[in-house]
């Protein structure tokens, strides 16, 4: 990705704390709703899934697609922002 969105920059700039799942890059209103329905209400819950999949891009993308029907770009954005967040804060 050549340019990152403002959302991505905001997310990776600080610890995620109690941010809602909408704060993740690539997760908009619709996807956020679907994730919340499945119990992934906070960004850190998604982070947990991301970590339990050992930061594997392929698996995480697939999971996101299965869980909320994210398209390829949304998957990439979400993966990228979690990965970068982990690189700086984990």
């Amino acid at each position, binding site marked *: 990705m050549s340019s990152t969105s403002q959302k991505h920059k905001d997310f990776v700039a600080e610890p995620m704390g109690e941010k809602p799942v909408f704060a993740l890059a690539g997760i908009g209103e619709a996807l956020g709703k679907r994730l919340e329905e499945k119990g992934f209400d906070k960004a850190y819950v998604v982070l947990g*899934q991301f970590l*339990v*999949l*050992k930061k*594997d891009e*392929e*698996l995480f993308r*697939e*999971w996101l697609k*299965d869980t909320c029907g994210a398209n390829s770009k949304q998957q990439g954005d979400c993966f990228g922002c979690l990965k970068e967040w982990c690189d700086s804060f984990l």
Partner: protein
Amino acid sequence: MPVFVEDPSQFSKQRLKAELITHNVELPARESKKEVLLELYLKHVGVKPTADFSSDEEEDQVQNGNDEGDKPDPDMTDLSLLTDEQLKVKLLKYGVKAGPIVDSTRSLYEKKLQRLMEPAPEVKLNGTGDAGQYSDSEEEQDEEEEDEQEAPEQSDPETVTELDSAANQLKRSPGSGECSYADSSTCSTFSITQLVEQGSLLVAVVTASKCPLTVIGFTLEPANDLLKEMFPDAEVTPFGISATRRRPIRGAAGRPVQFKYPLPDFSPASVERKEISRRLVPLWIQTVIFLIVSSLLFLIYMTFEEFSY
């Protein structure tokens, strides 16, 4: 495909149930006898002619899904029946180091394993893998077949197999080989026996293909062998043409030859320069200065000696 009509009375109970389910027949009771099932089966399903191709396949699939006894391949067992540990081991067999397999990750790993277990596509070289979809491939095949048919007509079957044997034959009967070449003006000086002795297969093939002679038949196969020799890893494609990754050729196309280490410069000027850099002041100047200094010291010593008296 041979038509194989099975006797429904020999079906297992499970199989009968499966068949009934596939034909949308309601099962009578939870624990019903086989006879009842058989009756139902014959009534609703009967022995349908197997000409109905698609439904036949469908039946087979369902049957495979339900009937445990018919599955000899252990790899095709239902993945959802595996324990987490088994799943992990299986993934490891395919070179995937799985993370923790928990409720939220299990389905993903199952899918991944499923994908890995599918047989890998055989040949995928620049789209030749789906060559079967295009009609022109059939023509190609026909041509190839024709070639193969023509080859034995033009030369002995022995000569088709290998160039070596062909060369040996020519050696054994040099008269016939040479005179046939002498007929064509382009190859009057060409002697195949000599070339083969030199082991230059390529030249033999190239020059032989230039001559519109009876040898065309045997050049086909050796050409393939040669390619195989040159590229043993290359896979055989239906067209005989395969695209390989481009490899840069050092020194080709005007590019400078790049050595791993810089080439040492042996020109006289550079040698001199090195000499100078090693000794900033040349040797003779050093000796002269040494002499001057020592003579000065000697003079001073002498004058002091004179004054002391």
